[in-house]
């Protein structure tokens, strides 16, 4: 069965998510790498002298293979954890916008509903705050359910609207959500405006006992590893993301998923095929909001704080960028899109940093032309502030981010998924160019 990827002997086999052994192994290895990412895996470090003595590999390893170690110093753990959290929420929007074709700018609102609910269910009550202190297995799904209920509540309006009308009405939800958080009763749930409220740790408890069953909030020791709280949180989020992604994938490829796609593509025809439009749009809103709610709760958990104004328009817009860059409609596209949107600013930052660090050589000369130090000209000011038209590196990061979005979409309007299709088509035809 190896090496014959297109031969299936039963529908069951073909219907598996990763139908071939080679795919299963590749995905398995990838997931394993994801789990090992935050640790110092001995195999890859210089602790094994045999590896080091091999000429080329030895020099490559140096202080350990970077991939397995690059999360080691925890600096990268937070952005990657953020990727995982946003990916969960993005999966929801992908179901709504990518699969069912209902573009919503209100995703941040549903995340806010989830975050607030989770803070209420799982947080402690105190100084003008309501909280029930319930364990995670209640507050995490509870966040999703509450958001889903709100989603169902607004769907009678939303279902009748199309395209940009829907997008802008849902945009209104974001403002409404922040407004509600500011009201005298809203802040008892969502926390004070400006400061928010402290958000509970991801510790797993059976009920309200003091010592958690699984402690995620503090450093500790798991199996053979010393794990920091950051690493634990990463692993927890990784598991959650994988589970949610699998659920989404299954949903898309079965009856409900097809119904949603049918509505997206041709709504009247879908109805004539026996797919009740209203019902399925409501389902789409509910499931999407459920994902958003869970994502919103985990988003607050990652920040350690529930802050109403964090669930703002820009967050919503970020999801739209995720869908577009990843390519709407697919689970893998959503995951990759999230990775890119969260990490691009980081990469941009690295690039400008790298540029400004060089002297001489091609890069150095280029950097000299583009970057303005305290006394010379150039468009990018490396000092944090120069008057007039010169921008700080940080402003340039943002400009570059904006420009990247524009250029990327001009070059590849279908997003990374489009790139993938292109590459695949190319290799399918290879070595014949036509």
């Amino acid at each position, binding site marked *: 069965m190896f090496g014959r990827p297109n031969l299936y002997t039963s529908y069951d086999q073909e219907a598996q998510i990763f139908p071939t052994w080679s795919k299963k192994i590749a995905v398995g290895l990838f997931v394993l790498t994801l789990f090992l990412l935050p640790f110092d895996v001995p195999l890859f470090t210089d602790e094994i002298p045999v590896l080091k003595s091999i000429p080329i590999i030895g020099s490559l390893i140096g202080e350990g293979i970077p991939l397995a170690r690059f999360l080691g*110093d*925890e*600096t990268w*753990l*937070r*952005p990657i954890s*953020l990727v995982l959290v946003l990916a969960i929420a993005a999966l929801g929007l992908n179901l709504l916008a990518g699969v069912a074709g209902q573009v919503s700018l209100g995703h941040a609102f549903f995340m806010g509903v989830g975050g607030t609910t989770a803070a209420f269910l799982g947080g402690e009550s*105190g*100084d*003008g*705050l309501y909280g029930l202190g319930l364990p995670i297995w209640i507050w995490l799904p509870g966040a999703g359910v509450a958001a889903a209920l709100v989603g169902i509540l607004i769907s009678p309006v939303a279902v009748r609207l199309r395209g940009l009308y829907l997008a802008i009405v849902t945009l209104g939800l974001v403002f409404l959500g922040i*407004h509600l958080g*500011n009201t005298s009763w809203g*802040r008892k749930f969502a*926390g*004070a*405006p*400006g*400061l*928010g*409220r*402290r958000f509970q740790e991801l510790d797993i408890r059976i009920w309200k006992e003091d010592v958690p069953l699984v402690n995620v909030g503090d450093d500790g020791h798991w199996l053979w590893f010393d794990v920091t709280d*950051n690493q634990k949180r990463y692993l927890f989020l990784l598991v959650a993301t994988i589970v949610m992604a699998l659920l989404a994938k299954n949903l898309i490829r079965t009856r409900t998923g097809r119904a949603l796609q049918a509505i997206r593509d041709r709504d009247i025809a879908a109805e004539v095929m026996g797919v009740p439009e209203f019902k399925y749009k409501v389902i789409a809103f509910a499931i999407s909001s459920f994902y958003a709610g869970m994502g919103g709760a985990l988003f607050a958990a*990652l*920040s*350690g*704080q529930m*802050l109403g104004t*964090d669930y703002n328009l820009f967050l919503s817009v970020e999801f739209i960028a995720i869908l577009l860059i990843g390519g709407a409609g697919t689970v893998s596209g959503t995951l990759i899109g999230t990775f890119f949107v969260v990490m691009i600013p980081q990469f941009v930052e690295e690039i400008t940093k790298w540029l400004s660090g060089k002297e001489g050589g091609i890069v150095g000369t280029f950097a000299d032309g583009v970057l303005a130090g305290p006394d010379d000209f150039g468009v990018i000011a490396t*000092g*944090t*502030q*120069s*008057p007039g038209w010169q921008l*700080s590196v*940080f*402003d340039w*990061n*943002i400009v570059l981010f904006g420009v990247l979005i524009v250029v990327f979409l001009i070059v590849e309007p279908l997003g990374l998924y489009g790139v993938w299709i292109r590459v695949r088509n190319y290799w399918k035809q290879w070595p014949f160019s036509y």
Partner: protein
Amino acid sequence: GSDSDDGDTAADTAAEEPAAEEPAAEEEAMEEEAMEEEEAMEEEAMAEFASSPGIDADNMVIRVGLNTDLSGAFAPLTTKITDGHLAFWEEVNANGGIEGWTIEPIVLDNAYDVPTHLENYESFRSDGAEGVAMLSTSTGSPHTASIAGDAIDDNMAVIPLSWYSGWGDPGIGANVFEVQTNYCVEAMNAVTYLSETFGPKMAIAGFPGDYGEDGSLGAKYAAEQLGLEIVYDGQGQVVPGADQTPVITGIAESGADFTWLTTNPSTAAELIGGAAQAGYTGQWSGNSPTYNPALLATALGPVLDTSYVHSTYNELWGTIDTQGMNDLISVMQARRPDAPFDDVYIISWIEGLIAKQAIEQAIANGDLSRQGILDAFNQITADLQGLAPDQSWSGDPNTNVVRESYIYDVDLAIYTPGATVTTEDASNGYVKIQGPFVSPTAEAWTYEPCFKADF
């Protein structure tokens, strides 16, 4: 759990103090022995300090972090503050650093966004190239709050760029060392002055949240103490971006003698202009960030000239002749000749001076680790060289909290728009009325966070 942490810190300090004296004594002895053998001395000195996160003992470099907003909502302001901050360290380094140690400021942009702030903190706390010994700037209240817990775990000293009254409370941020007075006390002082000058009827309007409500609550506290009449209470009623008619109507109909604002300049302008048109004739003042002198160049200039009183928590550019102010002006003119003329550099200087003095103390103690710097903070009394009242953090918050603030009149006639720091006779149109002063209200107030949040 932060209370017990605080206890630990105190215990640590006590335990280490005798040990810290030893190297200092040794150093003195060496100096007496051979002044010309400087190199040898330095080598010895190096040996005393181990490298730790943010400290590169081999090259004698101390890294200091600025987690600041360079592209977000407050970028126009914080960019300048950060620039002043960098100028400060440039000057320090050019003059031999601190006891031979070079200070390397590491600036990261938080874009006024909590997740980004946390991400930046992750690099600051690491032992990599961006790891720092302390944070001399942490911009924003929710942002600073989000790292407050980690800062305790890491023994990281943090200077917030936020004047929320809660920072003095060890339960909210044991390692967050607030600077100058807070919004709440500022409001108490100013309201006292305003009521004495203009009359007893006061209107209040402010943003919701830690900034706006802190200021409003301070004003209300003063009103209660002074027996003022609050004719319009707009605490938390001003939401930026919305049409402000309800608040404007409220203020205009209140017949207040003066109105206390805790907003941003844009919204303040809307309220002042709107209320003036609706027939309000009273005076205006507000917490320091409410006002921006650039407003004088707009249609609102004349109104502000006659009816705005500016309150701050520090001296303003060139209004006094002290070492701090003179240094600031000469350094900025020399190192940033094209920088726009602005008073916010004083904040940079204050933060810089505090960080510098804490580091000096830590060096003197012989412990440059994060814990050492943290301890140093709890030992020093920062000398702000006349820029603002001196300040210390050890012991009871109620004795430490700064209660002085300043009052300025706004004068359109002397305002010079578009000036840079080198423009001669540049002025932002301020004439000092009073300060530093402590109102009896603020004097008598027992410290606790005015605006309470679960942090």
